[in-house]
């Protein structure tokens, strides 16, 4: 983005500090690192590093890694980690640390791009006259009631930038918040392969904001290839790309073409690597059918351990659909705030995907500062933070009580995951409602001090 040298050195310092912290922990507490790699909070069967090692070992030894019950991760990790396996373990660590820095750099660029778009905002459309994007035009019905109610009272349309006033977000803050987040550090030390997913999602957002639609779609395809859930981010990504140009169907078509083409390319490359399509059943199949019931912080595992066999398929469909049904409504409601829609959908993924870990939450927490302007409208901040800390402290304790001490049972850990889910729900609801409230205040500045209720 043609940034001057000063931000670069600033980022360099940040990155150096992040690497030092990680290296100190990695080399100073090797046993801790080995322990972290097995933590179910940090690594699920779909992102676990020990399972990846097993897959690479089987692949190297000439076995089909997808033949067994252990390796559920994408095929393209295999040659990459085969290469890393040749090198000393420190290289793998360095690779993960670099991935973290790269994610932070993408976040930096995202903030920079957001600032740039807000400062050059005169062409930012007012919400009421916002051009209908492809995603929105399909669902005009859903928009109508709100349009109508707003049209009646539409006065003093203000741009986002004007409304935000002097509050500016520093890219260094966002990057530092990501790099310094203890959950990020733990995920990095645990070598969870989720960081690649996070990187792909963040890259997609960055390139969307920078209007490089080919790269954006390619990264989205990578993210979807790695764990199919990010496919639902196509809506916000297209909104971001479309809000800045005269959107035509052909543009949407080209975007989808790139997306599908890249996905097909990745799929074919995987096929070429392992020589069969078995990877589909072992990666997406496991994520969809939840055949591995290893506990995690999500809602699926205990539900399907305890589920009656004849209702299993039904609830599986309900749960998976429930994750995806929010994609369209969120995009429609926030069609003029696509970055928020992006964040909310990431939050929904972190909450409702079949194998979530704290790494998914890290992404949401990293994107959250992009919406700093709504923080003052948030009503449950204390509750959310409290529940989050409560769940993240108690989950390992309860796990230990259940699995190692034998003095607790599965319900203890399950309760912690419920609290964790509640914390995420409060965060997402709070974020959504604050943005709506803020929009209202922006559109009706005169009634800002009056009592406002949701109808």
């Amino acid at each position: 983005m043609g940034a001057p040298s000063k931000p670069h050195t600033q980022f360099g310092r940040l990155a150096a500090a992040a690497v030092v912290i990680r290296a100190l922990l990695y080399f100073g507490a090797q046993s801790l690192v080995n322990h972290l790699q097995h933590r179910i909070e940090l690594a699920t069967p779909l992102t676990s590093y020990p399972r990846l090692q097993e897959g690479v070992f089987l692949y190297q030894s000439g076995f089909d890694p997808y033949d067994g019950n252990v390796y559920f991760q994408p095929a393209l990790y295999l040659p990459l980690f085969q290469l890393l396996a040749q090198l000393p373990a420190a290289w793998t660590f360095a690779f993960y640390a670099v991935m973290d820095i790269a994610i932070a750099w993408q976040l930096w660029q995202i903030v920079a791009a957001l600032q740039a778009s807000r400062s050059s905002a005169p062409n930012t459309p007012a919400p009421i006259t916002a051009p209908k994007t492809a995603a929105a035009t399909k669902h005009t019905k859903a928009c109508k009631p709100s349009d109508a109610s707003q049209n009646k009272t539409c006065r003093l349309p203000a741009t986002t930038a004007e409304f935000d006033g002097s509050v500016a977000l520093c890219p260094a803050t966002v990057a530092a918040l990501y790099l310094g987040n203890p959950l990020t550090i733990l995920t990095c030390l645990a070598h969870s392969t989720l960081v690649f997913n996070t990187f792909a999602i963040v890259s997609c957002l960055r390139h969307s904001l920078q209007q490089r639609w080919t790269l954006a779609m390619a990264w989205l395809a990578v993210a979807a290839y790695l764990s199919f859930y990010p496919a639902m981010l196509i809506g916000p990504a297209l909104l971001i790309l479309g809000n800045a140009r005269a959107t035509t169907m052909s543009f949407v078509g080209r975007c989808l073409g790139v997306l599908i083409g890249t996905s097909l390319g990745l799929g074919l490359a995987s096929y070429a690597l392992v020589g069969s399509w078995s990877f589909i059943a072992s990666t997406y199949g496991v994520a969809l059918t939840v055949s591995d019931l290893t506990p995690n912080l999500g809602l699926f595992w205990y539900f399907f351990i305890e589920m009656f066999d004849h209702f299993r398929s039904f609830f599986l469909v309900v749960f998976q659909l429930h994750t995806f049904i929010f994609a369209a409504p969120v995009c429609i409601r926030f069609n003029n705030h696509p970055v928020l829609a992006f964040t909310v959908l990431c939050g929904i993924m972190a909450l409702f995907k079949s194998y979530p870990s704290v790494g998914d939450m890290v992404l949401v927490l990293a994107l959250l500062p992009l919406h700093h302007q709504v923080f003052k409208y948030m009503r449950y901040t204390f509750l959310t933070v409290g529940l989050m800390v409560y769940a993240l402290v108690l989950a390992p304790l309860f796990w230990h009580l259940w699995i190692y001490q034998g003095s607790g049972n599965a319900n203890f850990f399950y309760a912690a995951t419920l609290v964790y889910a509640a914390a995420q729900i409060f965060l997402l609801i709070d974020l959504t409602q604050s943005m709506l409230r803020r929009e209202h205040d922006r559109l009706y500045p005169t009634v800002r001090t009056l009592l406002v209720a949701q109808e």
Partner: protein
Amino acid sequence: MRTGIYAVALATLGLLLPVTTADATATGNASPADTFTEQLLIHPLNADKFLSHFDFTVTAPLALTADHPEQHYRLFPRLIGQIVQRYGIREFHLTFGQGHWDYERWGYPVEPSTPPSLELWARLVPSEDIETRWNGFTNALSGLFCASINFIDQTTLVEPRLSFRSAPSPPSAAHADKHNDEPKSDHDNARNHHGDGAGATTVLRHALLAKENVCTENLTPWTKLLPCQTKAGLTTLLNSYQLYDTDYHSMGIHVTLDCAASATCHPEAHVTLRQTLSVVFDRVRLGLDTGTPDILDTLFKRSLRSACPLATSSQLAVVVPHASPWQLTVGPSYWAKAPLPQYGIAVFDLQALLSKQQNQQQQALSSLTVPLQQSDSLLPPTTAHLPAGVTVHRHITGQGMERGGLLVHLFNRLDHAVSTVYMDALPWYLNVHLHTLRIQRHTLATTPANAVSDLASHPFSPTTTLFQPSQDHGRPTVLELQLEIPAQSLLTLSLNFDKMFLKYTEHPPDANRGFNVGSAVLTASLPPLSTNSASRGTDGPASSSQVLTSCDYRTLLASLLTSSVSPMPNRSVMFAKPSAQPCLTRVYSEPFLVNLPTPDFSMPYNVIAFTCTVLAFFFGSMFNALTRGYVVLGRDTNA
């Protein structure tokens, strides 16, 4: 009870004809085509334990059991014959076991299968419908033996590619002359299989049911297959009160066709049915220390009154140390020389001793008694235990219910390297991580039996590694390692696994007891006894290499049968020259119990309610936020 068992067997097999295995009018002189021999070997294992090994062998020409117009069963049980014929079985071995065979103290068993559970392995003729045939086969056996053999499914079934290939061929009494040739051909087969496992002409399947108890309900159908059932002969000693009150119990049925390893069967081939029963009695528990007990009465609480008239040969062989004084009310028919110099074998020919018709030299007996003069008379000269040369021990490591590991110790106490194949089949709910497999070699000290002299471990790599990863709710993980264990060394294998989380319906009712995992099998190519004897000089009399292997026992039993044909003077029968071929035997590890993490079994409704509440909470709030707009309260009145 008896009719019930028959009903099950008949219903399973779909047989309509009544089963008459033994012809009541038959005389002791069996036709040469169809022979039956019975043997009981009583062998003191060490100061405290007695091994009693029953061996009943029926050999019949294959034409009797093949698809022949006149199916004529005389001594060979029709039930088995029809199973073999109908399901295309070339060989099968079914063993019911209970208790642990202590290789470290007892040496090798007579019958190599020692898992403390149910073991079935078979060779089948390959064909399209092999799954159907296998299912039929296991169901037939299940009905026949009143056991859960039909629970052998894909989660326990293994098709070994290196192990079991080299089964020690069961020498039949009728073909004792061929005996020396058989191990050679088997060994050649084994070599071929090692070269190309896929080139096998038969399909080898192996399964262990780790949680299967053996009981009288299995013994009764087993004895029904014998020509004399439990009415005469050695089978009258089978007193289930005594048999199941033992340290170790193993009951087996072994059916082998001569052509087991080849695709087509020679028309003159024979089928051999061997029924074996090994029990290890504890001397203290039996109260052998008092008085001058009769050994048969003490062990079985029964006495022998007759020999089976259908048997070609009916023998009781008691292995006794030479050094100890003997006094018998009845002298043995002859003394045989045991393969180990410190023992002699007193052989009692039951037909000569007990049947009045054939009695010429000796007076007929109403019952045979073998009383011991003093309690220590059966003790071996050295009470130091004689560990088997090659043993395997498997331990489960790790704590907690999340992960675990295996630690396997493979001992080779012999003075030369031994070629072995280690096979472990772990059920699907243990997710094995092959990349954690580590093999280390330690050198054993020569003086104390198990001490490791060389604490430094050296990495060791197997000759061949075969690995079949498990599948969810499907086949087990199978690990086969071909290992050349160096002389006097200990190999330690370690392997990690994750424990899977099962649905609450998949746990057994006693979920916190754990899941049984069957034994690992080590197929070892042991040196012949002659080589062992040669190297004995350096190690002294208590050398660990002076342990009989299963093959040696088999040769011993066969040679006793052949020698009984010609009358020999006392104490001069030579033990048949041991085969120069290495003995391929199997050594079983301990099974283990693994604790899987359990959910709360009372929670289904609560979990469904709680989780769905969370989902509904989010859906409701989000729906609310997305569909409703903000309005100013009281705006109409203000305006």
